């Protein structure tokens, strides 16, 4: 018998012994790591062509606002992303939040038939096919989109309800400035009106300074084509601005001389000048996603607190975390790169001693703007003779209360 064969014999014997031991339950935990006989995922043609997640992963979006479907009648129906299950900073396209207006359907657009027109106060009106846009110099950037209505209240129970109408994706497309320069903006062309092709032809006015700065005409999202719910085949992205300005199913950009007061603009209109100044660009904001409302801690011991921070004012510069209701703050770690106008993951090591705790996070952006407590916002406006509610978008600090039994609850009062 050769040495090789004897080694193999030895291995087979020992392997058999090990298997026997498992059969007797001597190493029970390991059994759970071995799929039961026959428990495998068949490599069907469909799965070979386009993969899917495990059946054991059940994280899903939820309708926000209580309506069962966006096709049902609704003024503004939104679908919230499951931030409580998020890891990293990319929201998977299938879980990205969706904002719709007037019970909007999702148009089913053949990209070969789709066109983008640029006209109005330009030297050369232009029409582009999607393929033509793909020939132009491209950029790929991480950006969040957030609905202006992403406001937390005390009745919400989970982070999906308090903050689920924001998501972050890697967007690929052409800078809008590239297209506007190609068309040649005329003197006095201070605004654009961007319009979609869906049934209500949703349109938004955007200042030219923003349009020329960093707006994107996107055909790509998270490494593939933009999803229909996100505007396939073309979506305008206005980084850091209220989500409604990131016009989906983009078909037309008109350069104009003034704010055009479209129906969508009217819906976001403000009466007060300070309110208006706060309304367009999302303020510095963050939320702890783990532990967050509705989750359950297993017991005292080590936990990594995880959360997301973002700002319409640029990159996240700093995130602090408090575990005692805001009395003491500790700098959190920024995980990965803090991209401009993008979700940024932060973490903090935490040894939970089993006592009731209140978790909070606070974001500071590159402009030096600091995320406020709800009470600070009220105080600021009260001092200026305008007491009451949170103005602009709600970027206030979200408190989560961890009870001594490990359950986690919304602590907004």
């Amino acid at each position, binding site marked *: 018998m050769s040495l090789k064969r004897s080694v193999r014999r030895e291995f087979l014997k020992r392997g058999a012994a090990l298997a026997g031991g498992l059969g007797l339950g001597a190493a029970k935990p390991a059994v759970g790591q071995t799929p039961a006989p026959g428990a495998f995922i068949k490599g069907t043609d469909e799965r070979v062509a386009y993969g899917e997640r495990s059946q054991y992963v059940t994280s899903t979006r939820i309708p926000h606002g209580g309506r069962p479907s966006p096709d049902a*009648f609704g*003024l503004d129906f939104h679908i919230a992303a499951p931030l409580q299950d998020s890891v990293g900073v990319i929201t998977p396209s299938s879980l990205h939040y969706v904002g719709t207006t007037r019970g909007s359907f999702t148009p089913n657009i053949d990209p070969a038939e789709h066109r983008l027109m640029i006209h109005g106060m330009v*030297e050369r009106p232009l*029409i*582009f096919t999607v393929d033509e846009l793909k020939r132009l110099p491209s950029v790929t950037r991480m950006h969040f989109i957030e609905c202006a209505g992403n406001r937390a209240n005390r009745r919400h129970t989970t982070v999906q309800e308090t903050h689920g109408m924001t998501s972050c994706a890697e967007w690929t497309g052409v800078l809008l400035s590239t297209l506007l320069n*190609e068309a040649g903006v005329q003197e006095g062309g201070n605004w654009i009106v961007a319009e979609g092709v869906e049934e209500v032809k949703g349109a938004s006015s955007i200042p030219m300074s923003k349009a020329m700065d960093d707006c994107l005409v996107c055909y790509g999202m998270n490494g593939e084509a933009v999803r229909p719910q996100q505007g396939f085949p073309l979506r305008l992205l206005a980084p850091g601005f209220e989500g409604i300005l990131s016009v989906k199913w983009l078909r037309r950009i008109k350069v104009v001389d003034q704010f055009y*007061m479209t129906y969508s603009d009217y819906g976001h209109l403000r009466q007060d000048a300070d309110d208006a*100044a*706060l309304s367009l660009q999302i303020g510095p904001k963050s939320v702890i996603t783990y532990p967050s409302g509705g989750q359950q801690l297993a017991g005292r011991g080590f936990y990594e607190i995880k959360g997301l921070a973002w700002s319409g004012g640029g990159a996240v510069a700093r995130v602090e975390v408090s575990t005692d209701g805001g009395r003491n703050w500790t700098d959190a770690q920024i995980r990965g790169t803090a991209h401009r106008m993008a979700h940024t993951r932060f973490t903090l090591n935490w040894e939970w001693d089993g006592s009731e705790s209140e978790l909070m996070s606070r974001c500071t952006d590159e402009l030096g703007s600091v995320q406020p407590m709800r009470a600070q916002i009220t105080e600021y406006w009260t001092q200026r003779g305008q007491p009451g509610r949170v103005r602009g978008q709600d970027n206030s600090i979200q408190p989560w209360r961890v009870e001594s039994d490990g359950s986690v609850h919304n602590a907004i009062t």
Partner: protein
Amino acid sequence: MRLLKLLPLLILLVGSAQAQSPTFGIGRTPSADEIRAWDISIGPTGEELPPGQGSAVEGAQVYLQKACVGCHGVAGVGGPAPRLVKNERRANADPWSLGRILPIRSPYATTVWDFINRGMPLNAEGTLTANEVYALTAYLFFLNDLVEEDEVLDAQNLPNVEMPNRDNWAPLPDWWKPGLPRLVDYPY
């Protein structure tokens, strides 16, 4: 040597010439007809409004014919779709207190015309004629006490309908630029 001295100037000239002309030469020029067909934006001045006209009396008919009543209710109240008539709880109230109701809160009459034209009626959006849109707009303004029932609205007078919020809204501040804090002295 002489040429070398002129070089910066030459670069400048060429550079500015490039800014005036397309760089990539991709995309085609739409015809005037194509632009007209696609351009449904109606700005506050109403310069894009098409020819046509309509009164509230006619609009009340269109409101029934086009089944607006099925979603918005009789005379703009009581349907599953948004209410179209102001909620008048007390006289001389701030127009903002009348509710988020398009034909009364909108600062410009053109926004009302534009949205009926682009977004109504449900499942047949964009099929109304210009006359029908003028008539419906007049009807909604009549229901909100902004025009008389026989007043005829057209491209010339529609932009001049006196909306109560005409100057009662806050535009983006003049100083606004991308990358600035949102509000001066606001620490958040």
